């Protein structure tokens, strides 16, 4: 009848098993698959990430030099990161922060020129309300 | 497929299944897949001591197939699912949801048949056998 008592007494001495989140936040493990990031300056807009994505959360417009990602449709599987030939995509170790409205991440880079080298320097990041 | 697979005609299915049961095989599941616009492929998978064996039956869409639930009662659940999703009618099904296991009256008929062709009529959801009403509490 008192089988759980030793466990309970041990727990009383050891203290709570829970963390006082958000006051205490656990350090993420290395290489956890979190939020997606793109160094838009190096992106060649080849579209491989779009083709490999299982959840259709990416869009690329090579003519305009635009890369769009829907963080709410993304399943954070990391297949795009593996597929990217120039390794401009990476995943942070923390997940995306909670949001109060739908967002889409839209990054503007320099469009690919036919036969020419990719120029550097992309413009800033825009987050705007996506389709609801 | 790797294991023994035999094709049987629809008429000989029940006899073959009963023979397999007598030899100690038990039903694992049924698989239905669309062959083309007119025909469905029904596969019956059997297991004995971790070995598999398969039976293949070709059924025309709209044609009724005999139910093996009198031999293996557990087939009733998967045959009901195939009725819902592929529009096959299993004759003699012991517990018949009449196409209403997953589907509602307003759902499309045979949603897993995508190659077009003659689609069977959506079977009535209040079919024969024991069909649960599904509405709340009632005292009789």
């Amino acid at each position, binding site marked *: 009848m008192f089988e759980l008592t030793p466990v309970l007494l041990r727990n009383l001495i050891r203290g709570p098993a829970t963390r006082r989140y958000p006051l205490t936040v656990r350090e993420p493990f290395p290489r956890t698959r979190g939020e997606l990031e793109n160094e838009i300056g190096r992106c060649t807009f080849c579209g491989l990430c779009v083709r490999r994505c299982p*959840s259709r959360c990416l869009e690329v417009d090579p003519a305009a030099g635009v890369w769009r990602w829907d963080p709410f449709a993304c*399943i954070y599987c*990391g*297949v795009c990161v593996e597929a990217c030939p120039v390794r401009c995509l990476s995943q942070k170790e923390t997940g995306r922060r909670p949001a109060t409205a739908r967002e889409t991440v839209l990054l503007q880079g320099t469009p690919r020129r036919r036969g020419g080298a990719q120029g550097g320097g992309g413009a800033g990041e825009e987050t705007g309300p996506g389709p609801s | 497929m790797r294991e023994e697979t035999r094709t049987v005609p629809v008429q000989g299915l029940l006899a073959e299944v009963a023979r397999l049961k007598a030899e100690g095989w038990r039903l694992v599941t049924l698989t239905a897949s669309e062959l083309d616009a007119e025909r469905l492929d029904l596969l019956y998978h059997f297991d004995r001591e971790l070995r598999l064996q398969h039976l293949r039956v070709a059924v025309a869409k709209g044609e009724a197939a005999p139910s093996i639930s009198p031999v293996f009662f557990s087939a009733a659940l998967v045959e009901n699912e195939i009725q819902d999703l592929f529009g096959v009618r299993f004759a003699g099904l012991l517990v018949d949801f009449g196409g209403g296991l997953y589907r509602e009256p307003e759902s499309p008929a045979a949603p897993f048949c995508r190659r077009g062709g003659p689609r069977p009529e959506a079977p009535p959801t209040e079919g024969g056998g024991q069909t649960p009403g599904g509405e709340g509490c009632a005292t009789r």
Partner: protein
Amino acid sequence: MRHTVIPFGPQHPVLPEPIHVQLTIREERVVEALPALGFVHRGLERLVEARDVPQMIQVVERVCGICSMIHAHCFCMGVEALLGIEAPPRAQVLRVLWSELHRVQSHLLWLGLFADCLGFESLFMQFWRIRERILDLGEATTGNRVIVSVNVIGGVRRDPDAAQLGWVAAEIDRIEEELRRLEPAVLDDPTVRRRTVGKGRLSRAQAWELGAVGPTARASGIAEDIRQTNYAAYGRLYFEPVVETDGDSHARLRVRFRETLASLDLVRRAIRILPAGEVRLKLREPPAPRGEIVVRVEQPRGELLYYLKGSGEKRLDRVRIRTPTFANLPALLAMLPGASLSDVPVVTLSIDPCISCTER
């Protein structure tokens, strides 16, 4: 004699996923049980039309939220067999390691839910606290807690180094110690025994006849475990299926608890036999499998069957998934008549229902 019809589900505190069973009660005993399914039917099998083979791995992983790695493993095994390739030996052992960690995590989840359904909330907390440590092991080695996305055609995506594996082995030892401390509380406690012994009895003949699989069948004396077919690296890891003969809810509880400990031991031995080498075959072209195949693996709830049909295209023709809870539902519906109304939640939960697997 008055009959009362009571709906069990689709929302019920003990059910992790929605299933509806219409119970006809006479004087607190169940006379008839009729199921109604379809609350979480997503039609995932039809996504083969719109996703090519590597993308389908992510889809089948999401059939079930608890045993997702094992779905992906089965799918990858099927495609690899159709393509005539085999994952490297290190990848095979790593797949076993992660599958067994998943099995531990799934059984701990069930043990916690079962304790909760009996009202034993503190035991529920204990089990889930241990489960968090397993999820941490998964997250550190694969990148995510449950839906690990670590299987690919031709191997696995992550390769834990020796330091990580040493930490995993040490954690497994600590977790086993904690579980053994909980063993008397879960198996010998008089209240737990009162609520589970003799409830939902399934005889061996009934279990065989109705097609029960997994711990539900093994608790009734059927000594079959698909891991005995030696897929992946199981051929190199000797193990014996855990079997009980009573066939009641307490027997199912004992089977799953002992399987948890057996899986922890399998993880330890897998780390010991892990060979060096690569973990992923480089495929020369996108996979375009041709032919039909039936693959089976042992999921925490029982035998999982995948039927794959391809015709040499990038997209498969058909993926058919038969999950173990689908096979155990007829057994459940045979167990319910004769049970008392207050035992219905216990008996239902004792087959470990994963309805999102059942309905895909």
